[in-house]
């Protein structure tokens, strides 16, 4: 990990949280967009676990029980993407439940907004301290 100034440290948590929220928002958008695609499986992340991992500096990786196992190409994903277990899967193999997805999408948007508000107040606090 790179060395962080105290100012970086102050904003780090909210930066990580906002990144994860934006990432999750994108996944939920994909679910809603593919609500009518046959065979599509709804995806989401475990936000609490992902935030814990990011805060602790852990990255996404696969468990290897044997030395010859290959690592997965996880790309730039900030969190492990999981499939949702559907309450009422449809007959074409699609597992998007529109009520659930809309609910999560709105919930995630409010959390993102809250994060921004907290970050904003931190910035204001720091500015007040700097300017006196």
């Amino acid at each position, binding site marked *: 990990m790179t060395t962080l100034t105290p100012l970086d440290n102050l904003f780090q948590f909210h930066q990580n949280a906002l990144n994860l929220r934006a990432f999750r928002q994108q996944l939920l958008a994909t679910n809603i967009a593919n609500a009518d695609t046959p065979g599509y499986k709804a995806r989401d992340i475990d936000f609490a676990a992902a935030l814990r991992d990011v805060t602790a500096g852990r990255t996404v990786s696969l468990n290897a029980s044997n030395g010859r196992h290959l690592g997965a190409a996880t790309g730039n994903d900030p969190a492990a993407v999981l499939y949702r277990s559907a309450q009422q899967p449809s007959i074409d193999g699609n597992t998007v439940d529109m009520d659930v997805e809309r609910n999560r999408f709105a919930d995630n948007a409010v959390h993102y907004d809250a994060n*921004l508000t907290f970050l904003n107040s931190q910035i204001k606090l720091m500015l007040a301290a700097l300017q006196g």
Partner: protein
Amino acid sequence: MSLLNIFEIAGSAMTAQSQRLNVVSSNLANADSVTSSNGRPYRAKQVVFSELVFGGATGSGVKVTGVIEDPSPGKQVFDPKHPLADAQGYVTMPNVSVVDEMVNMIAAARSYQNNVEMMNTAKTLMLKTLSLGQ
């Protein structure tokens, strides 16, 4: 920035849903077209959706991979006075099910609305992010 991706995701879904709506309106309009340029009754059409994976990015949109024709047989209507009636006096009507198409139309419209709201939410969030620290 991953929020920007939502515009592409919702946009592709809106394009796909409007194409579905187009096909539905074509089916409804031709529900009574007993003949067409090839001399056969109109056949109902359906769109096929599939996931559109963007290179590198996590989210994926929707694309229409094709428009298929419904293979089910057309309805036979007994009307010996009709100029297109066969030897037994039956006319083959298009295989459009008006009730199915109406349901399809409502479903497409609702999905389109969902995507519009999704885009609005993403826009609000992005504008708030832009005004961070002001």
